[in-house]
Each structure stands twice: as structure tokens, then as C-alpha cells.
């Protein structure tokens, strides 16, 4: 049952900028089992979206491995990769820029099918498009509409239908609901969950907010400045977060209930720049518990308790300075 569909090892992506090397993804490791959802959470600029894109080779990685069914796809040739792409697709964040404004809904959904020459006849193609449109809960009359005639939620459904067209096993969901209103957000989250159950999909769900991934993830990875600092099953991370950053992230969520306002952990300052980051724990500068060696030695992501991975020198022994 616990078959690893995708495994990422020491993945790195650095961008050259005017002011130095931007360490967008800096040695990331994780795996996702079949039918599982891994939530990847972090604030803007932490490298979570880059991770998703490097995984699909939309951006070329600098080093590391991406194993899909135990084969490193980063070493695939172009034609091999094209075949492989059918198995892994992506849903984007921005419901406005993710659809070509010059194509109709059915043309957009047909694109991947046409590119990969899946169907020989037009009828087969049409049947498949109709099926997809129904699957994501769009009404058939929208087939000939253009994206600008649809609202954000419907556009996102079109994006999901396009991603599903090739029957992928694995989907990267890059903040698919963060641009939507609360009610629409809930509709799309439910849809994604239903699709996963029906089609046996595996998800990497990227989000900037823990509360969104809670509902849909089996395990959650928290990213900070290009590195994963905690990776745990979704229950533990909410009940008993281990890394001080996770604790702060969790406590920052405003809770819509009375009398639950606990003591807030307010972080000092802003997220430091990912350009030429200093040695040591990336979070040390904002951490209330940091000690001398936090600034000198980068903590590794280790399994501190069964199934719970943390990158902190002082797991379970945090004392305020």
C-alpha cells in the first residue's frame, strides 16, 4: 500500500540574480505515497512553488534527484520526458493567467489531448472533453465560453479539467485556492478531494497557509527559505508542532471561534533574503530559542520520532533564552 510514487532527493535550484545567488530550493527531500496528499506550506519566497515546478521539470534543477516510480526523471531525454509528462500534471494558482484567453473552454481542455495525440477521431475527443467537463462540475453550455466570461472558481475548474485530461497519477496543486473567496475555496477543495478518491490521484498540495492544507493533506511539510524544516502527519503538526517556525506559523492563524485566542507567538522581523543565505539554521535569526550553534551549523531534517521529521538542533528541548 505504501508505494512511493515520487521521491525527491537533495533537490536544489539556484537562480542567478544581480545581487547574488538566490537559493530558491536548497536541498529538499521528501516522498509521496500512492493516493496520498502531501501539503507543502510556506510563506512567499520560501521556494515552494519552485519546488513544484522543478519536480515537473518546468524549471531545470541544479542538482538532486526526482524519482518517479524509482526512475530519476531529471535524467530523461526530451522524448522520454514528453511521454512521462502524461503522468504528472499541474494546477496553477492564478485563475486569470493560467488559461489562454484566446481559446474556448473545450479547446483549453483539449490541448493536452491533441498535443499527445491521444484520440484519433474527433468524436472520441469530444466525448472525453464532455466527460472531463462533467467531472469537474462545469455545465456543458460553458464549453464554448472564453475564460474571461467565467468567474475565478469556474476557471479553476477548467484548469483542473485540463490537468486531468491525460489521466495523470500525480498532480502538483500550486496554491489552487488562494486566489478564491472562502465559499468558492471550500467548493474547490471538496472537488479536489472527491477527484482524488474517485481517480486514485496523488497530490502535492502547495499552500501558504496551514489551515487550507489541513483539510486535504495526509502529511504536511513546512518550508522556510528553500528548505523543509518539518514534515509530519497532518494531525501531529496541528496538535504538537515541533519546529519553532511551525509553532509560529500555526499560532499566526486567526481562529474564527470565541475564547480560543491563545498566547500568540509573534515572530520578529521579516523573512530574510534567500540571496546568499548565511550558514547555520535559516530560521535562527528570528527564533526565540536560538543558541550559538544554531548560527554555525545547519540542522538536518531527521526523523526525531516515528514519522516525524524535524530540522532543529533542539527538538523537544526548546527553552527560551
Amino acid at each position, binding site marked *: 500500500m505504501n508505494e512511493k510514487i515520487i521521491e525527491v532527493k537533495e533537490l536544489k535550484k539556484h537562480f542567478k540574480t544581480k545581487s547574488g545567488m538566490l537559493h530558491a530550493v536548497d536541498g529538499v527531500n521528501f516522498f509521496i505515497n500512492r493516493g496520498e496528499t502531501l501539503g507543502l506550506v510556506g*510563506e*512567499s519566497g520560501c521556494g515552494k512553488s519552485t519546488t513544484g515546478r522543478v519536480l515537473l521539470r518546468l524549471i531545470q534543477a541544479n542538482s538532486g534527484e526526482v524519482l518517479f516510480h524509482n526512475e530519476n526523471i531529471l535524467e530523461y531525454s526530451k522524448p522520454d520526458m514528453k511521454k512521462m509528462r502524461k503522468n504528472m500534471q499541474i494546477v496553477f494558482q492564478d485563475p486569470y493567467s493560467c488559461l489562454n484567453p484566446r481559446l474556448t473552454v473545450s479547446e483549453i481542455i483539449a490541448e493536452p489531448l491533441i498535443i499527445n495525440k491521444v484520440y484519433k477521431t474527433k468524436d472520441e475527443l469530444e466525448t472525453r472533453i464532455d466527460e472531463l467537463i462533467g467531472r469537474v462540475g462545469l455545465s456543458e453550455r460553458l464549453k464554448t465560453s472564453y475564460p474571461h466570461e467565467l*468567474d475565478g*472558481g469556474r476557471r479553476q475548474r477548467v484548469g483542473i479539467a485540463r490537468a486531468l485530461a491525460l489521466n495523470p497519477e500525480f498532480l502538483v496543486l500550486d496554491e489552487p485556492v488562494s486566489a478564491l*473567496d*472562502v*465559499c*468558492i*475555496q*471550500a*467548493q474547490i*477543495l*471538496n472537488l479536489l*478531494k472527491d477527484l482524488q478518491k474517485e481517480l486514485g490521484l496523488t497530490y502535492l498540495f502547495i499552500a*501558504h*497557509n*496551514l*489551515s*487550507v492544507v*489541513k*483539510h486535504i493533506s495526509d502529511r504536511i511539510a513546512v518550508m522556510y527559505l528553500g528548505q523543509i524544516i518539518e514534515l509530519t502527519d497532518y494531525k501531529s503538526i*496541528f496538535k504538537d508542532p515541533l519546529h519553532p517556525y511551525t509553532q*509560529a*506559523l500555526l*499560532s*499566526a*492563524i*486567526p*481562529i*474564527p*471561534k*470565541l475564547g*480560543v*485566542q491563545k498566547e*500568540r507567538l*509573534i*515572530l520578529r522581523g*521579516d*523573512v530574510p533574503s534567500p540571496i546568499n543565505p548565511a550558514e547555520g539554521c535559516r530560521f535562527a535569526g528570528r527564533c526565540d530559542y536560538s543558541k550559538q550553534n544554531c548560527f554555525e551549523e545547519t540542522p538536518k531534517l531527521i526523523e526525531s520520532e516515528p514519522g516525524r521529521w524535524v530540522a532543529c538542533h533542539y527538538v523537544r528541548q526548546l527553552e527560551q533564552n
Partner: protein
Amino acid sequence: MAEKHLLEIKNLTIHYQTDYGTVHAVEGFNLEVGNGETLGLVGETGAGKTTTAFGIMQLLPEPAGKVVAGEIYFRGENLLGKSKTEMKKILGKQIAMIFQDPMTSLNPVMTVGAQIEEMIKLHEPGTKEEIKEKAKKMLEVVGIPAVRQDEYPHQFSGGMKQRVVIAIALSCNPMLLIADEPTTALDVTIQAQVLDLMKKLKDDFKTSMIMITHDLGVVAEICDKVAIMYGGKVVEYATKESLYTKPYHPYTVGLFNSIPDLDSEQDRLNVIDGLPPDPTDMPSGCSFHPRCPHKMPICSQKSPSKVVVGSEHHVYCYLYEQEGAL
């Protein structure tokens, strides 16, 4: 009687003229804000929250946006009857505003110090040194070292920019602060910083506040009263305690259900079906009726009137009209 509230809005109606027809952004909007109170104005995109704020400030985009009907009483005086010159004295000094996107609400070619000083100079004139001192003090109040006053907005991060905007808004000690989604554009941890700061400052400055937001969590954190807005109207109004204990309006209930609960296990979220109404083509009667699970025939015919369901808690919904009659 009007003196009882700092701000009292009656039957406010604001329309926009566009190529696609008249947008009924705000329609028969009623609201009161008491002295020292913080009111959360909650609704989805397009519910008319921001338009209401601009309506109060009389900053609607001209000539498209117009207040078609209604009154806005601020300290007992109708703002809509004020001349432009009179309004200028009220804006900034008595009513100040914080905008949603800190990236665009500061002038990129002026130093942040100059932008704070501008506000002080307008309403609390003094010598150059006094004004400068005051601006420095305001920067420190919001947690920015005063030495940064000569820097330009692009040298600040998003959270810092929003702090500057808060410093500007509070620099003349306004009686009413309208904050339009002040934390939406920020990251979660920065959002917590800014919310924390606002909570502290509104007490220090004893300012009344209208907190426009779509996040019921933010409301729980900072507000005393809540108004839920849907389709340009307030559909439910209550104290925070009353609303979070028992929401009445089906829309409010749906809104609460759409939020993932961090403490409990749930497989599916209970969602409100359908989409918010098209503001150029509002449904008749109660604008929520096409999505309402408790729809009755009358809902599509006539707008519901106010039903008092508790002390300081009222709702506009036919479900409770009979209860009230009983």
C-alpha cells in the same frame, strides 16, 4: 439621538455606471458604529465592502460611482451634505483609512517620512521641526526605527509598508479608522504582527474602527461587533459573542461552515452552493435566495426586513420573521 453613535449609516445606496449596465454595489445599507467600538464588516469579493468605505470617505471613483440614496451621520452630522472643503477637514483628521494593498498605497517617489509629515502638516500644523519629530515618533510607534524616515517605500517589505500606512492613518489621532483588509496581502506570520500592532494601537489611540475583512478569524481576534454583508446589504449584525455563539442568517451559517476547522476532524466542508450574485443583475427579494437552503416563496418577492433576534443582534431573513411574530 443620532449622537449615540459615532457613525450611523442609513439606507446607503451606491451605484456604478459601466458599459455593462448599472452595478448595484451597495443597496439599502444600514449600520451603526459606537464610540470606541471596533466593527468587523465581513463579506466576499464584490459584496460592496470597499465601496461602502469609499462611500463614507466620499472617495468613490468619479464619475462612475455615485451615492444614489441614503445618509451617513458622523457625530450627528450628515457627511453627504458636506462641501468638499468641509470634507477635507474631516478626512485624515477625524476619519482615516488603511488600504488593502500596502504595495500600492504608498507614493513610490516620496520618502515615507514625507508621507507621514504631509498628513500632520494638513491637520496639525506646526514648525518644520515639530512636524518632523511627530512623524519620527509615529514611525517608532508602529515599530519602525525613526532613522528610516528618509527611505523610499521600495526599500521596505510589505509588512513594513503596511506599518507606515498605519502610522500615516493614526498620525492625527482620528476618531474613526477604516481598515480595508489591511492584512490580506501579507504572509501569515506578518499578518499576525500587523494585527497585533493594530489591536494595541486602537486601544492606545482610543480609536473606533471599521475592520473590513473576509476572514472571520480576524474578526474573532479584534472586533466587538460584526456586520455580515451580502449583495450590497448588511444581512446580519451582532456583537461578536452573539454571532459566534449562534449565527442566524443562512449565509452567515454557510460562511462559518466553509472555513476548515483546525481542531476537529471533517472529511468534507459544508459549502454554500452557487456563486455570489452578479451586481449588474441582482436577484429580486432577498439577494441570497438563489443559494439559500431554506428558500421560501416569499424570499424571491420582497426584501426581508430587520428582525431582532437578541440584544444587539438582528438579521434580515424571513426564517425568523414568524418567530418574531410568535
